[in-house]
């Protein structure tokens, strides 16, 4: 316990913390990010309504404006959409989906990328060639094209009833698959340097297995840039999901993300019911902006070349 306190204190005195305290925009972004993530994570507890319990919806409450505008109701702070769902609550729930999709997609590409990067960098030879050539091919497909592919494949393999349920995973896959190459390249480069280091040789002499060498020795020494990449990738992943939604490949209306909400709101842009499209859009931009500011800052701070 006291060790934890000591460690926290040590962290508080570290350069990282010092630089954090001296960057007001980053503090602001971090606070906003924490607040948004909290609202998303606790959506089912703090959202005033549950927009995904269809039995509670009342179509008579549809298209109410925000509370402070004539005709608005204090029950629905930011108004309601065409189905009578509370906009504030759908934003909380939608943000949860967006963040989950983003994190899962990044985790997916990170896992694949790091694993392949480690293997390619450590084994070298034809394994390396195959993996890296695969990466080149992968980079020849824009994310959107991959999403079209994966969407199509998913429709083949899944029975009709499951398509909507599995959509979450399909979207994660579609976004995640596209991004593994940059992780793999980063990790491969770092691995090729690390594997030549003597501590790896020492481990091998001590008859430590390859898997353990990769996971316990090399991985921790390559993970720094990976985490920065992941933070920056999170913003991109959330944005990509929104773009896929716009093209009809994102999350379905039954479990909408912010992107789905914006797409639905897009049709109402000219209708005068601006709150249905504006608020989810603002939430998305704020979320991605906060993620990017924090990620950007981390990259600057953790990049040894910029010290």
């Amino acid at each position, binding site marked *: 316990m006291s060790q934890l306190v000591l460690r926290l204190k040590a962290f508080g005195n570290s350069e990282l913390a010092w630089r954090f305290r001296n960057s007001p925009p980053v503090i602001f972004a971090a606070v906003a990010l924490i607040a948004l993530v909290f609202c998303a994570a606790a959506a089912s507890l703090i959202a005033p309504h549950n927009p995904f319990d*269809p*039995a509670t919806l009342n179509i008579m409450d549809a298209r109410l404006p925000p509370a402070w505008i004539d005709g608005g109701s204090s029950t629905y702070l930011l108004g309601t959409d065409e189905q009578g769902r509370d906009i504030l609550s759908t934003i909380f729930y939608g943000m949860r989906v967006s963040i989950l999709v983003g994190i899962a997609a990044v985790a997916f590409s990170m896992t694949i990328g790091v694993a392949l990067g480690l293997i390619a960098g450590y084994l070298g030879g034809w394994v390396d060639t195959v993996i890296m050539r695969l990466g080149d091919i992968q980079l020849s497909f824009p994310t959107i094209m991959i999403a079209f592919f994966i969407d199509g494949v998913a429709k083949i393999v899944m029975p009709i009833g499951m398509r909507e349920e599995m959509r979450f995973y399909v979207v994660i896959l579609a976004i995640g698959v596209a991004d593994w190459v940059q992780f793999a390249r980063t990790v491969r480069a770092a691995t090729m340097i690390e594997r030549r280091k003597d501590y790896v040789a020492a481990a091998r002499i001590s008859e430590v297995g390859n898997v353990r060498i990769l996971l316990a020795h090399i991985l921790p020494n390559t993970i720094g840039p990976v985490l920065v990449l992941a933070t920056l990738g999170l913003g991109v992943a959330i944005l990509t999901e929104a773009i896929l939604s716009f093209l009809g490949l994102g999350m379905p209306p039954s479990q909408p993300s912010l992107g789905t909400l914006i797409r639905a709101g897009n*049709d109402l842009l*000219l209708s005068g019911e601006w709150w249905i499209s504006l608020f989810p859009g603002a939430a998305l931009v704020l979320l991605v902006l906060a993620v990017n500011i924090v990620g950007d800052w981390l990259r600057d701070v953790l990049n040894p070349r910029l010290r």
Partner: protein
Amino acid sequence: MNRYLKLLLLTSCAGLAISAAEAKTLRFAESQEISSMDPHAAREDFTLSLIGNVYEGLVRWNKELKIEPALAESWETLSDTQWRFHLRKGVEFHNGNPFTADDVIFSYERAGSPGSPFAGLLEPIAGIAKVDDHTIDITLKRKYALLLNDFAGWYILDKEFQESIGAQKPLDLSTNTGGAMITQGIGTGPFKVASREPDVKTVFVANEKWWDKREHNIDEIVYTPIANNATRVAALLSGEVDFIRNAPPQDVARVEGTPGMQIMRAPHLRNIFYGMDQQSKTLPGLDSNPLADVRVRKAIYQAIDIDGIKRSIMRDNSRPSAIMMAPQLPFYDASLDVRFPFDIEASKALLKEAGYADGFTLPMDCPAGSFINDEQICQATVGMLAKVGIKAQLTMHPPVQFDTELPAGKYSFYMLGWAGLPTLDAYNIISATFHTPTGDLGAWNPKGYSNARVDELIPQIGTEYDTEKRQEMISEVMKLHRDEVGKIMLHQQFLTWGMSDKVHAIVPADEYTRFWYYTMD
């Protein structure tokens, strides 16, 4: 270089200004693109509607959607299966060729050739014989009541022109002989094709030599496809186009509220409904098929707050309907068009009676973008069904996939809409969606409603010339289908056409743009 550029810009601007002052140009935008200038290559309403200004059939629909003579001046039946048509004299194609019986026969052979989308339409015809240059005799394979209706959608081409460009056959995708008709077409209609860039724009100009009296004053029509709803409405609001078909209901108020803009409304022939698998023993995820029970179907029906949908989602641009037939169609029987009331308690009682007091899980499939606000209606339905304990699991499908999977019988509970185009008769509707699937009948009723009496009446409706008997049979079919809840009817969509108030259009229930009735200030 710079000066040259300026000059170029100046002249082009000036040119535009002059032409705008002199000629009446109607700039028109819609979400779809014309499939082809070949009127026999695609049997799809939007294309037929637009190129119906270029080509004409033997007969045509007038403003009131009644059949009137077009390229045929008159006709008579020689027997139950023999018709004589007297063709209009002095009609010229856009290229100056005279219109004769040979063109009709050529167009019959072309449109009826194997692989043509129109082969089915012309299937009742056994043959066409030329009596003289302006008289033909048509022999039918059997008695058929809807020949004239079908003929309104079958356009006549110039034999000589078609042969000169090598487009004797429609739609030959393997050899691309239809390629010549992508950007050009010669008909007899009120407008000529001036230029066409697929997916960019198509320009039509008035046919000065049209045989009919010119009611319209439009010199030029510029058609631009704009797929995105919001962009299309924005183009109208910004004055870049004068006319859009289908302003989305949510934008109607905005268009009406903009000075110089107007919305023209009309009920559409299309009725939207939920179709149901009533034949399978079990539904996916269940050990029974609740939809086979008429009480369950009625319970779902009564759980749907159709007025709520009308108000919130359709913004009053719909008419809740009880039978699958628009009032604008002949043989419509208003006394049957009475819905079961929206009544949650009654719905729950029916479910309880049928043994589903606790509800059940229902897979539900909807197209995304085929019908007006289809997605929102389906979502609202999920909420409404939840209130009586039915957990609908909604899947949205891209239309191309939906239209493939639905006839294959892959869906249990699905949204569909049917208008009865281009025949404009109840027969088209009921033969496709009421008949037990057999052969070519009931293709859009997979595993669906099945009633022996209905199946017996449908072929008779197709062949009966006597209007009173037809009325009786159609009413009987409609009543049976309604009472047995063969489909869960929702509403009849409204057409909401947005346009500059300079445009004076007519909005027919079949959604066709008949520009020869339009004028502009």
